């Protein structure tokens, strides 16, 4: 049993449940109104930014001296993880695929070299890990503890404005079926057809990194692959997806892989169960007709 575990999480009870299972005393740092469930919950104002709370969180950690810090696999989780790892003089284990919490320390695996290899590594306590959804699944184990407020500031850093895009986050990581848009879709004019097809298939819509970052067809939190969402869906349909390794790595755990691509020699053909070779402009409406 560990003595003190600190968790940073803004959504989901997976990390705090596991922390409660392995530690005598747990501390959760989260945004106000987001989560509870630890012996002590520190909340910072939702309108603030985690970047302004780093020193305050570091103060909490310095007093607590946790053996283990678990951070969610989001940009904010990674920021807290790195900052606290420096304080605790350890190396944070980033975006682990598996994590064993042992008496001696952490053992983890994660993908490296764009997903071509899996690295197995371990660190002694104190240790920090960045953990995505599904890695530490288990029984919900929450405590009713006391809540304290954090109101951190950082000298020289001023939060000028905050905006929420209002774009639905959806639940790509947990979706049963996914339609994925690649740059081969050709034109934003086809996006309404993608919506229609996804509706017929009861699927969430994801995309490749270029479709998000270069074409701006979808927000960045929708891209699938090594630096984005890792799917666990039963079905994946790639529309105009070339099949680059960095993307396909995110589909490795999918059930059936379907693809529509104009090139029979595209990389995705080797990575798919069923590929329709054709022109997405004509195939997309034709598929929709068949599914209706």
């Amino acid at each position, binding site marked *: 049993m560990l003595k003190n575990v600190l968790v940073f999480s803004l959504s989901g009870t997976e990390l705090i449940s596991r922390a409660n299972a392995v530690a005598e005393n747990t501390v959760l740092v989260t945004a106000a109104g987001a989560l509870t469930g630890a012996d002590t919950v520190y909340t910072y104002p939702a309108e603030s930014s985690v970047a302004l709370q780093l020193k305050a969180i570091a103060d909490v950690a310095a007093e607590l001296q946790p053996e283990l810090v678990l951070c969610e696999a*989001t940009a904010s989780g990674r920021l807290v993880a790195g900052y606290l790892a*420096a*304080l605790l003089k350890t190396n944070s284990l980033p975006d682990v695929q598996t994590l064993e919490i042992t008496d001696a320390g952490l053992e983890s695996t994660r993908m*490296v070299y764009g997903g071509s290899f*899996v690295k197995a590594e371990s660190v002694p306590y104190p240790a920090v890990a960045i953990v995505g959804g599904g890695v530490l699944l288990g029984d919900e184990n929450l405590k009713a503890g006391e809540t304290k407020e954090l109101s951190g500031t950082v000298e020289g850093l001023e939060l000028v404005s905050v*905006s929420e895009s209002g774009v639905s986050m959806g639940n790509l990581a947990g979706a049963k079926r996914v339609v994925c848009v690649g740059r081969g879709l050709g034109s934003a004019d086809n996006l309404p057809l993608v919506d229609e097809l996804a509706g017929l298939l009861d699927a969430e819509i994801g995309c490749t990194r270029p479709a998000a970052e270069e074409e701006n067809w979808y927000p960045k939190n929708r891209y699938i692959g090594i630096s984005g969402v890792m799917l666990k869906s039963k079905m994946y349909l790639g529309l105009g997806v070339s099949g680059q390794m960095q993307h396909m790595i995110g589909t490795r755990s999918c059930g059936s892989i379907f693809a529509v691509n104009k090139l029979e020699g595209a990389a995705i053909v080797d*990575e798919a169960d069923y*590929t329709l070779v054709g022109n997405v402009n004509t195939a997309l409406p034709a598929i929709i007709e068949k599914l209706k």
Partner: protein
Amino acid sequence: MNILVCFKYIYNDEEVYVGSDGTPDVGSASWVVSPYDLNATEAAMKLAAAVGDSNVYMMTVAGDVLDNSKAKKSALSRGPAAMYAVKAPNALELDNLAVASLLKGAVEKVEDVDLVICGEGSGDMYSQQLGNMLGGMLGWPTLNVVSELKYEDGKVMAVRSDAGRTETFAINGKAVISVTSDISRPRIPSMKEIMGAGKKPVTIWSADEIGGLASVTNVASVKAPPKTERKRQVFHEADEAEFEEFCKLLKSSI
């Protein structure tokens, strides 16, 4: 303003193969500047131009690649005026704790550094942690996932985009900033810039000289994962029966 861009020399990932024992074969791989660090370099150059009267320097922890003049040119041909490096023979085996502590020591040796800019992650390990750790070690304001840097009313403004939330910060003083790859497109250096880069000053310290912390990570293995076998069936849109069959299979997945 003095801006330091931290970067990593990695093996060109297109030349890293799966060896017969499943481990990475880097025997024929050439050295490149990690691609995301080129985005960071261009972002630094643009910011320096906007601020005016500024300097951009490169900084790395690396091994024998520091003796390679082509590698030096590839780091310095995109605008930065000079390079600082900590030479550690086993650089690629060091964990982020060790690398960040060497960078901290090196940053403190360079006079009047205002901003440290890092890429979002390295092209090989992609931990997305180094900038955050360096910020923690230096005790400086630290931001990650910054997708825009600009200069307004005498202040550096950083736009941080995390999922659906966008935060804009004004930075007044020192900071460590990790930028996303969409912040800028790396420039393609001209032949003149490449030649000129060879003449730019490089300061190299040994890791022993800097000190720094030891790695705490034990790497058990790095191996290619087993491949998921797929059916690889191909259907043609032009063939009506094949198209029909594809749609039937798709429908059965619902």
